[in-house]
């Protein structure tokens, strides 16, 4: 095979409307004409349009993402590969990434969410890792919105059915309800895998004349232009885009996982890349570009599910459960044998070349002949205008009315959409398969044991969108800090994060301003906490009819617990003293209590002091490992009283609270100041704990003791734990079942 033949000419030229339909601007099309020196064919137009789409090219975000810290002694592989890799010691490594599947999940929640999970697992096992834990971060619209129930139900069962069939435990996540997601829900899926550090596979197709091999499912007409759809805002006609949503088959993915891992144990693979967004186009371009070679594909050999598929359709299909590999010469028979054993398609569809060109042949015609340099690094890069957002005023306790009863307000808040139990969701996820889940969903972090060892991998997904809406810089800092805090509360050394940057249209300066602020805030926190970014994904254009989602820089973190015998957990036993570590100042801006009392989120979100954060976290980790504390929980949504109530519910014991504070009681108990933990300690060790906190420079305040079967605060009638548990557990199932019939 060789290049050189002129590409087939398009018939009758490409109309401006057709070019616009491909999401290309006039400037971008002019750039294509200049690069090629001629009009592109339809297939070429399709190929360039997906490679230059926001989703694949990161053209609006790239210059800012480059500023994020990505290095550290624990980092084996930073951003740029299918997923990031961190060192776990003993020759083992964790591979992880989080990715969005927002647009498809709104249009078709079940398949959209399912294929999001499938895609992120492929990213992880492409690198040679066996997936060992999944998580997800979900943002739905207001519970009152007509579509919310349908979306929750579809997304949760889509995630569950895919992960459950794969046999990978889904060990937690987070879910928010907020009317600003009414028209654009967010589905961010994270996967963590385990690999031997010396058996990591990458995508570069290094070497000329090597076979390019297609494996997995057949190619169909589903998902064509999914990447372009994910790079545009929605309007009232968006539901008509349902045919662009892919359809998942978890059983085939399970076969693909096992077949790939079996082949990876042989010495056969040069490079491997999953076919995700922009399918065959993006995978082959990336492999060739990274390997510094050209690539020539003959589409006559592509296994197709439907008849008479055109080159255009094959190159843009996003059919799921497919992989592209470049094999070592002569490795085809062993690879074919393994894929046949797993009853998957296997086809040699091309070869690497030294021409630097991307050549697509079909039915004897050259359908595309493009310089690779124009497709990958040649994509436009934009420094879009960004407008800073004015800082909001700090809210004081006087701005927010006190409740008649603190415990009454607590019960109402915990029996509502923001704070209620997410059990209805995570019980639909198999969170115990693989028999290594040592901390199940519902706690600060999910933890899986590293199989066959006593080490644990802690995983947490975090961001507080209402904070980011007020101040994207502080909000993104807070997301990183809360993730770090959750891993710490599990007793883990936080290692690194993956991020999923969900925003509105970057073409609006105020949205681009939010993005820039969020990247800066995230970078500052990652640097201060030695918690670098090793992988991630950007999802822009999350807006409908001109209304954007709140900035949502979701963070997924991984930490290492050296010995699971010394893990943190949040259930308190009876007869313990409760202590809050970290300073309480009564920050009520953007707090859940503020919304409960006033009906709105206003003012500046709580700031994060990263030095205090680090001191408190390092202290807590030490207390857990020394066994000084018997329970730990971070203080987040809803503040101190909610944190204590969650610990009491988990431990099935009451608590009696009293605190000496100059703050107004509602600011003290419901303020959402950052960098805090509640810990439980044997009364006999309280003094030891307070001394160690003092010498570590961490404020510590005793706030009560555990025992009995109610929450008690001086001057208020006791709140029985049973009643609190009912409202906390029943809100979500009641809400979901109210939608039937």
């Amino acid at each position: 095979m060789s290049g050189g033949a002129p590409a087939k000419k398009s018939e009758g030229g490409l109309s401006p409307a057709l070019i616009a339909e491909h999401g290309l601007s006039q400037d971008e099309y002019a750039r294509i004409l200049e690069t090629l020196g001629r009009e592109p064919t339809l297939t070429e137009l399709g190929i360039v349009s997906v490679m230059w789409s926001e989703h694949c090219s990161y053209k609006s975000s790239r210059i800012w993402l480059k500023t994020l810290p990505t290095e550290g002694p624990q980092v084996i592989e930073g951003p740029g590969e299918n997923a990031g890799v961190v060192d776990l010691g003993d020759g083992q490594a964790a591979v992880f990434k989080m990715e969005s599947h927002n647009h498809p999940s709104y249009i078709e929640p079940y398949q959209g969410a399912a294929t999001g999970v499938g895609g992120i697992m492929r990213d992880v096992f492409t690198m040679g890792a066996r997936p060992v834990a999944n998580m997800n971060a979900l943002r739905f619209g207001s519970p009152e919105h007509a579509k919310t129930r349908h979306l929750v139900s579809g997304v949760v069962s889509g995630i569950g059915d895919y992960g459950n069939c794969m046999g990978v435990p889904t060990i937690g996540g987070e879910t928010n309800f907020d009317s600003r997601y009414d028209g654009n829900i967010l589905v961010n899926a994270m996967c963590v895998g385990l690999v031997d550090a010396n058996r990591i596979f990458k995508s570069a197709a290094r070497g000329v004349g090597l076979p390019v091999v297609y494996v997995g499912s057949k190619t169909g007409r589903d998902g064509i232009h999914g990447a372009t759809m994910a790079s545009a805002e929605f309007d009232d006609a968006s539901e008509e885009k349902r045919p662009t949503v892919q359809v998942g088959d978890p059983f085939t993915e399970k076969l693909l996982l096992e077949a790939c891992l079996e082949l990876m144990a042989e010495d056969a693979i040069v490079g491997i890349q999953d076919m995700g967004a922009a399918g065959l186009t993006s995978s082959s371009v990336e492999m060739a570009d990274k390997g510094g070679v050209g690539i020539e594909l003959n589409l006559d050999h592509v296994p197709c599910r439907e008849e008479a598929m055109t080159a255009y359709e094959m190159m843009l299909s996003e059919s799921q459960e497919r992989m592209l590999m470049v094999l070592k010469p002569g490795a085809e028979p062993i690879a074919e044998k393994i894929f046949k054993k797993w009853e998957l398609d296997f086809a040699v569809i091309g070869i690497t070349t030294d021409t630097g060109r991307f050549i697509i042949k079909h039915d004897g015609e050259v359908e595309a002949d493009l310089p690779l340099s124009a497709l990958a690094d040649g994509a436009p890069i934009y420094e879009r205008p960004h407008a800073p957002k004015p800082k909001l005023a700090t809210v004081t306790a006087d701005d927010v009315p006190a409740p008649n009863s603190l415990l009454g307000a607590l019960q109402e808040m915990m029996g509502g959409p923001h704070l209620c139990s997410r059990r209805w969701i995570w019980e639909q996820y198999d969170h115990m398969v693989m028999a290594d889940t040592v901390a199940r969903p519902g706690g600060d972090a999910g933890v899986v044991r590293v199989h066959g060892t006593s080490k644990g991998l802690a995983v947490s997904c975090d961001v507080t969108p209402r904070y980011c809406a007020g101040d994207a810089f502080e909000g993104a800092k807070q997301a990183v800090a809360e993730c770090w805090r959750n891993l710490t509360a599990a007793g883990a050394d936080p290692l690194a994060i993956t991020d999923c940057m969900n925003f509105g249209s970057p073409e609006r300066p105020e949205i681009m301003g939010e993005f820039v602020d969020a990247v800066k805030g995230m970078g500052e926190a990652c640097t201060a906490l030695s918690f670098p970014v090793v992988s991630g994904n950007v999802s822009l254009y999350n807006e409908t009819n001109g209304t954007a989602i709140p900035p949502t820089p979701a963070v997924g973190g991984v930490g290492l617990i050296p010995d699971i015998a010394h893990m943190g957990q949040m259930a308190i036993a009876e007869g313990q003293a409760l202590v809050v570590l970290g300073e309480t100042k009564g920050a009520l801006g953007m707090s859940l209590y503020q919304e409960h009392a006033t009906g709105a989120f206003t003012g500046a979100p709580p700031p994060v002091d990263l030095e205090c954060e680090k001191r408190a976290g390092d202290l807590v980790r030490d207390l857990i490992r020394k066994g000084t504390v018997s329970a730990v929980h971070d203080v987040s949504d809803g503040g101190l009283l909610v944190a204590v109530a969650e610990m009491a519910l988990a431990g099935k014991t009451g608590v009696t609270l009293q605190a000496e504070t100059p703050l107004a009681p509602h600011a003290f108990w419901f303020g959402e100041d950052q960098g805090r933990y509640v810990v439980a300690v044997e009364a006999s060790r309280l003094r030891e704990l307070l001394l160690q906190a003092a010498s570590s420079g961490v404020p510590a305040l005793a706030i009560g003791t555990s025992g009995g079967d109610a929450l008690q605060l001086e001057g208020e009638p006791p709140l029985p734990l049973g009643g609190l548990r009912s409202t906390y557990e029943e809100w979500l199932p009641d809400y979901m079942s109210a939608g039937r019939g």
Partner: protein
Amino acid sequence: MKAAVIVFPGSNCDRDAAVALEAATGAPPAMVWHGDAELPKTDVIVVPGGFSYGDYLRSGAMAAHSPVMREVVARAKAGTPVLGICNGFQVLTETGLLPGVLMRNRSLRFICKDVHLKVERDDTLYTNGYAAGSVIRIPVAHKDGNYFTDDETLARLEGEGRIAFRYCSAEGTVDDAANPNGSRNNIAGLYNESGTVLGMMPHPERLADPALGGTDGAPIFSSIVERLQ
């Protein structure tokens, strides 16, 4: 004592079962691929959880017709003990080794959580390590675990003492509130006529290790070893 675990392409609790078996027997079990028509000589066969062939048809329906299951059925009929867990139970009903069928949960949702089970008998191959009437806690994880059979068969199963486990409350009350999936008579597991075949929806292999939060599942495996060794 030798054990074998059947591995379908969509099995995903095969490793978990192997770990629990090895802990009980002291030796790793043989892992038998679904396409193999030959089974090694073995004292007990475990059909593990998962999604055998994807289960897009009725759960376990295709697996029941695989080459390896023909051999498993033959061995079971000759008296070799066979334990089917979750998808394994579904497969055993589809082969006819156990009566009835596992329908979609009445909630229509997948459900993964710890449940309490009442151990009906303590004189069987699989439950001699428990006390009859005791309550154990192990998890379920399934979408199709709603056990159904006709009235006549149900009466026979009850009359012959073939119910192995029933879903119950933590205090041991067998009632509808404790029934996670709508199974008739709260049936979570049952025996064949000779008591050598046990099918159960809950996963004993998932709580057989203190690090995972409980060990109530371990006696199933140690009971087998106790009886066969």
